């Protein structure tokens, strides 16, 4: 469910920092930049597969076609309107998988209490 910052923004901001004059806080900013590029690197590697799987799940839930952005927005609107519910196990399973795929890109070391999907190898 990647909306912002997009990977292009992370790369642009990091390039801008690399081109800026040195400061006393560069040790900190270097870590932040490494974190940002780590996110971009994982997104390039992992998101295409995760996105295709999310699209397939959302097509089934919503009974319509579309790309990730359109389907994700439609799902959010349907949840808001109450025509789709997270109490539906298939919907919850989709949210779980998508959010865990996103976390694996954004903050893979974050510790949390959400169970892995049933058929996961983890």
């Amino acid at each position, binding site marked *: *469910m990647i*909306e*912002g*910052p997009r990977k292009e*923004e*992370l790369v642009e*901001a*990091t390039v*801008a*920092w690399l081109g800026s004059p040195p400061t006393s806080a560069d040790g900190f*900013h270097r870590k*932040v*930049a490494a*974190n*940002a590029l780590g*996110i971009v690197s994982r997104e390039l590697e992992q998101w295409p597969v995760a996105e295709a799987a999310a699209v397939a799940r959302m097509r089934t839930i919503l009974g319509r076609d579309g790309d990730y952005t359109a389907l*994700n*927005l439609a*799902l*959010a*609107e349907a*949840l*808001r309107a*109450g025509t789709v*519910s*997270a*109490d539906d196990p298939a*919907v*919850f399973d989709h*949210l*779980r998988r*998508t*959010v*865990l795929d*996103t*976390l694996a*890109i*954004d*903050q893979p070391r*974050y*510790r*949390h*209490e*959400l*169970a892995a999907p049933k058929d996961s190898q983890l």
Partner: protein
Amino acid sequence: MSASEPAAASDPADFVLARLDALASALTPGGARATGLRRLTGGASLETWAFDIEGDGEGEGGARPLILRRRGGGGEAEVFETSLPLAVEARLLKAAEEGGVAVARLVRDCGGADGLGEAYVVERVSGETLGRRIAADPAFAPAREVLGRQCGEALARIHAIDPTGLPPLEVQDGRAVLDRYVDIYRKSSNPRPVMEAALKWMESRLPPPVQPSLVHGDFRNGNLMVDPDQGLTAVLDWELAHLGDPAEDLGWLCVNSWRFGVTDRLVGGFADLEVLLDAYRAAGGEPLSVERVRFWQAVGTFKWAVVTMMMYRTFASGASRSVERAVIGRRLSECEVDLLALMEASR
């Protein structure tokens, strides 16, 4: 001590030191001068300074360690413009101390004549505030044994303070807090499936309205001063205090972001919820259901999600071009995972 270090002409340290020097005898009996001034926080408009007051006499017990909190000019815009005036914060500190809450004792609420602007001085309490150390450092194991109970007691005492004796504070019940953050969310982001699902979950669990209590508003690991052996020594950061549901404070303390990786200890990464709730009740707090605490934990997680959106917005709008601000937007996934975990636990 480094008070005599040369500073840039524009350095506010010179200005602050001169004012504190002039206040030395008012800040401590026999005080002659302020020394060792150093800034503890930077960036935000709210400044925190550490300093000592020294006397001329011998055998006076040495320098008195103090803290100055002060609203400086300019600085980076706050994400929230909701902070209380420092004079109100000073009144709350006084009331908390009188109510038996561990706080840094108020030494002086600085009026305009002190020349420091909006400011107050408190005693400097020793201890650690870094959440990660408090939750995981072996040196803090003795503190973790008692901290859950101490937090329950401190919260019960805060919530027992009579609001009629306090300056007017905003009343924010569950509905009001939720509405405030939903409004920011709708303005900051396209609808997101997990956020919408979490909203439905929270709206179906809104607690019934309660008699408003004093709520600290930011009671979490990171805002607690902790001694490795004695545990809680001071509850800090009162600037988000308001009137509302006392369960709000307990829920916020349980938000996973404040457990610093020690996820299985629900309360700040250092204690179990039963310990907190039992101590809260034993110290006179009203019995709170786990469900009500969970509701507020979800609200707190949703709130933190909205903050990450706002931080990213300051980057996207061009107000800040730092990588740090951009990358905070990717912490939204942490909040969404935590929201789903809360929903799953109640299924």
